[in-house]
């Protein structure tokens, strides 16, 4: 059973260490002897699910966002929607997350249509408001268990949720809009978040959750071997402790 990581727009949306997310999935499969392949999906190229997949959709700068919105408005957007409805595993980060909603409005007032996987939209910051920047700690409940995610956020846009569950609640930081305490969004096996920094390397439980969700679509009883995560947990704990202690974020 091979896991395929589809890295959407890898050549453009490579900001903020998205590579860390790809490497994290790849290495954690390899260390367990699970075959894994990373496929870059560029503009104009179709997504080709194999049945055991993770789709990664990273963040970019405004200029790239506009190029991608055009590509997503076509067949690829419909394909992604179908993948999510079918229970496929998708992770959108920052710009990718924004484009998983209904639209992203640029600071110039242009509305870039999104894929509509999540019932949410993103509006530009108002005059006088700053970008939402800094380390962030989020509480997430997955499978009845409360966990935490740590990362770094850096976004000008304010995301407003409609009828969709947030990924988690902000313990420290800004989250979707800096106002309502929500961070990210989730539906079925699709997740969107503003946490980069990179998200997956320091939150190995979440990486494993994505890997396991993908594998279980093929084998419902699949279990992951535990790994030695001492370094990852130390990195998580160092930042989480700094934020809980109210120190400089």
């Amino acid at each position, binding site marked *: 059973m091979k896991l395929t990581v589809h890295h959407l727009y890898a*050549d*453009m949306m*490579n*900001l*903020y*260490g*998205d*590579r*860390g997310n790809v*490497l*994290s999935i790849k*290495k954690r499969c390899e260390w367990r002897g699970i075959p894994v392949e990373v496929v870059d999906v560029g503009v104009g190229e179709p997504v080709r699910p194999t049945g055991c997949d993770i789709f990664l959709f990273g963040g970019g*700068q*405004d*200029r*790239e966002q*506009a*190029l991608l919105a055009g590509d997503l408005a076509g067949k690829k957007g419909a394909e992604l929607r179908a993948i999510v409805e079918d229970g496929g595993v998708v992770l959108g980060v920052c710009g990718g997350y924004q484009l998983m909603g209904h639209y992203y409005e640029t600071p110039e007032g242009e509305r870039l249509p999104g894929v509509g996987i999540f019932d949410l939209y993103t509006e530009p910051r108002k005059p006088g408001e700053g*970008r939402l*920047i*800094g*380390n962030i700690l989020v509480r997430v409940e997955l499978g009845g268990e409360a966990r935490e995610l740590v990362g*770094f956020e*850096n976004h*000008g846009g304010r995301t407003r949720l409609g009828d969709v569950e947030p990924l988690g609640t902000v313990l420290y930081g800004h989250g979707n809009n800096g106002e309502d305490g929500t961070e990210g969004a989730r539906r079925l096996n699709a997740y969107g978040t503003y946490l*980069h*920094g*990179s998200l997956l*390397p*320091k939150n190995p439980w979440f990486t494993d959750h994505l890997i396991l969700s993908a594998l279980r679509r093929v084998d419902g009883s699949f279990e992951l071997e535990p790994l030695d995560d001492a*370094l*990852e947990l*130390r*990195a998580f704990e*160092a930042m989480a402790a700094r934020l809980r202690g109210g120190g400089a974020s």
Partner: protein
Amino acid sequence: MALLRDARLSAAIAAARAARAASRLLRAGGGSTVPGVVARRLDPRVLRALSGRLPRGSAAVTGTNGKTTTARMAGAILREAGIRTVSNFTGANLVTGVTAALVEDSDLAGRPSAEMGLFEVDEASVPRVAAEAELRLLAVLNLFRDQLDRYGELAYTGKVIASAFEHLPPGGGVILNADDPLVASLGRSAPGALYFGVDEPALDTGRLQHVADSKDCPLCGTPLSYSAVYMGHVGVYRCGRCGFGRPEPAYRASRVRLRGVRGATFVLSGPAGEREVRLRLPGLYNVYNALAAAALAGEAGAAMEHIVRGLGAFGGAFGRVERVLAGEREVFLLLIKNPVGFNEILRTFIAGGGARHVLVAINDNDADGRDVSWLWDVDLEMLAEAREEGLLSEMQPIMAGGLRAEDMAVRLKYAGLPVGAVVPGCGEALRRALDATPPGETLYVLPTYTAMLEIRRALSELGYARPFWEDR
């Protein structure tokens, strides 16, 4: 009126002097910007007034990487040409730092002792410095992803820099890196711009690194096609759609030979002829710095022989690449600011062989960039591959230090590299790394900016280096 103005200027200079003395006495740091802040409060026109009295005007260097080194190189060349310059050398590169440098160089009557200002200027501060210091020359080195959390986005930073061009003399004065597409595209706002670039097919890495920031045409967004990629997104490129391409450089480096940590040689061609240059600084990025310095100094009036001598004698800028003798050990400090610079150092390690003891110290203070996700864009896999090929077999597990030591350790782990000691904090990490380095051997320390300051302080406390403000 004139008398009143002069009195105010003198008062501002006197107050700034006092502030500088006090801040040194209190060891509050280098005292590099405080005098500027004080002087500007007393006389907001102090920079305009003092720079207006420099007979040869002022020049500035900006860009993500290499500002300090380039400004210092240009200073060394101009010194060869007998031109006295005043500079803000200690990384104080906002308008306050520029002001402080001029205040310090002037007597109480506001007469500068230098003939020319030569400043490194933070990207966002360029328009203000250009307007107040009436810049005659401005060199833009490169625009890499660096501290995006401060400025938002690269294209925006480019726009900010271009907005300063209107303050420069029409028909000249703007010097741009031809090989960086985003920087070269700024030439649309500067009709008389001059360019510098590298022509060396042997340096083509054959691939855009993961860190490539602007590999799409800055004008129309189409992916650029490269005939050579030197580092990051820097190379020889062309847009197939709108025709934008690398401009013809007036100052060019060819036959570039990189000689590991020992330096580099290249043939410099400029309006005044062609000469071989020997650099004592390593890496292609320093060849670019040297080219920019040559162009800036050349346009300011230095001759080819001054350029060759000035660059050949240049030993390195504060902290960027620095050798410190630590008792029986040698410490090499190599500043890292972003993936491109980090990759260049890794390439130097691989080309040069022998590195055994390495400490990477990552801080996330404002001056370092608070977001450390860029570590994932560093091509540490290149080091892992070199090890698998049997190169670097001597290298010990890399140590991680600084406020984000743990993040660095995780990065090393996922690159497939053995992880050495993980020591939060810089001073303690340095001491541990020195302990692990046998006498007679070299410790390579790769710190981010504030980690470098802490490591220098730790070295100084051990009696190995002087505080940086004495290093002028």
